[in-house]
């Protein structure tokens, strides 16, 4: 212990070197967590998993009681919606059958729409909100890999940033920057093809996603839903991301951009689904080619 006292300058220098080294080590574009990190993350994660069950249980009950106040109004609304859904359901069933039949004709069994869902529960959230990340209770042992999309029932919320053996970290959509773009499709009512674009990042002040179109489109209606296109190679096609709030041009007036409001509520997360795309991505094809 007296070491810290005597060699003060020495210690400060050493600690600065350690700081820079560690930051450099972790900022590097890593594929895997080191085993030490995995071990610590899993240990803390398993305790959280057990200890927080009652906490979340109580929170859910309180939330349920809150919701009960609006049950009557919601019920009326839902009844109205229900009648229109019957018609839609029939249409969808017919379309699915037709689609399957057509795909069978083409001898095409896997598409970029298919995915295997992995159910998970959020067990912790990063305490300091510099990083928008949450921890879930599923890891490599359950098939969760880096870069998989994470969704809730109402839409996409983020992607897997890193996975340990029994827990994984999810980077939420409001933490996305230019290094993790999502390729998206926007439905155009007039033409047959969809508008294409990229999610560039998150606008903190507006609390909306920033979308850049690859082309210039004239007839983009507000509140149109934005879906993932599956062309980025990581996410499956057809995951709902949000709806368009405003269409403008960027600061130089060269490209068309839009602000997208998220469909899912990323502040209130509880049960999420990790999306494992069935069609192999380009990386995986390359990997199997190497072997």
């Amino acid at each position: 212990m007296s070491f810290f006292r005597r060699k003060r300058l020495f210690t400060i220098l050493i600690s600065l070197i350690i700081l820079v080294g560690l930051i450099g080590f972790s900022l590097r574009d890593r594929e895997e967590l080191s085993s030490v990190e995995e071990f610590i993350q899993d240990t803390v994660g398993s305790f959280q998993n057990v200890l927080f069950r009652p906490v979340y249980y109580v929170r859910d009950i309180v939330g349920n009681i809150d919701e009960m106040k609006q049950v009557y109004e919601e019920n009326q609304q839902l009844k109205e919606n229900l009648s229109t859904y019957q018609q839609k359901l029939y249409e969808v069933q017919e379309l699915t059958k037709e689609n399957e039949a057509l795909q069978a004709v083409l001898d095409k069994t896997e598409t970029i729409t298919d995915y295997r869902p992995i159910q998970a529960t959020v067990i912790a959230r990063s305490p300091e909100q510099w990083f928008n990340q949450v921890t879930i209770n599923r890891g490599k042992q359950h098939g969760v890999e880096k870069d998989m999309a994470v969704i809730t029932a109402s839409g996409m919320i983020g992607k897997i940033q890193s996975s340990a053996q029994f827990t994984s970290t999810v980077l939420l959509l409001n933490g996305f920057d230019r290094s993790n773009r999502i390729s998206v499709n926007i439905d155009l009512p007039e033409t047959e093809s969809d508008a294409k674009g990229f999610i560039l990042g998150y606008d903190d002040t507006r609390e909306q996603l920033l979308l850049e179109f690859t082309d210039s489109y004239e007839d983009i209606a507000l509140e149109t839903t934005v879906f993932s296109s599956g062309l980025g190679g990581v996410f499956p096609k057809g995951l709902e991301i949000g709806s368009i709030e405003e269409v403008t041009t960027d600061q130089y007036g060269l490209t068309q951009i839009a602000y997208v409001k998220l469909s899912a509520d990323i502040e209130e997360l509880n049960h999420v689904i990790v999306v494992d795309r069935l069609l192999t991505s380009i990386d995986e094809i390359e990997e199997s080619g190497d072997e």
Partner: protein
Amino acid sequence: MSRLFPPLILFILIILQGINFLFIPSSFEASGFIVTIHGVFVFLIMIALYYDEETSYYSFLYAIISGLVLDIVYSPVIGVYMFSYAVVMYVVHHLRKVLHVNFYVSSFVFFLSMILVDVMIYWIYKLIGVTELNFQDYFEQRLLMTLAINYIVFLIQLVLFKRLLVRYSFERFEQK
């Protein structure tokens, strides 16, 4: 128990750090304040004030270890918490030598170290490009409310742990 108590509580606090967002009222977020609860760091201050002797550096040692664990579990960048916790605990340890500990002095130490640690973390994150928030926005949106909320945490921990820490410190260092 006198040896085990501080690391045990620290471990529990590290785990609890993951559900801290449940303790922050959602009206804060709506009005644009972002609060970080530094439960672990508050307990480290408690250790420095009430447990450590002048010649023992347990608060410093625990700061390094718990900072590292926090880094690994809750953020993608390793080393930031470890470094800032360790440096600030070192300062606190030296402050303690010149100050006579009572409630007002410990409040003063708390505010000083909390400002130091939060600004330091912000500054490192800004340096490596994690955030682009300028200092004034940071000060208004984050620092002020963080100080207020953490002071409440400090008072709660003072009530819960102060007596225990003083007793265990006595058992640990004086009775030999």
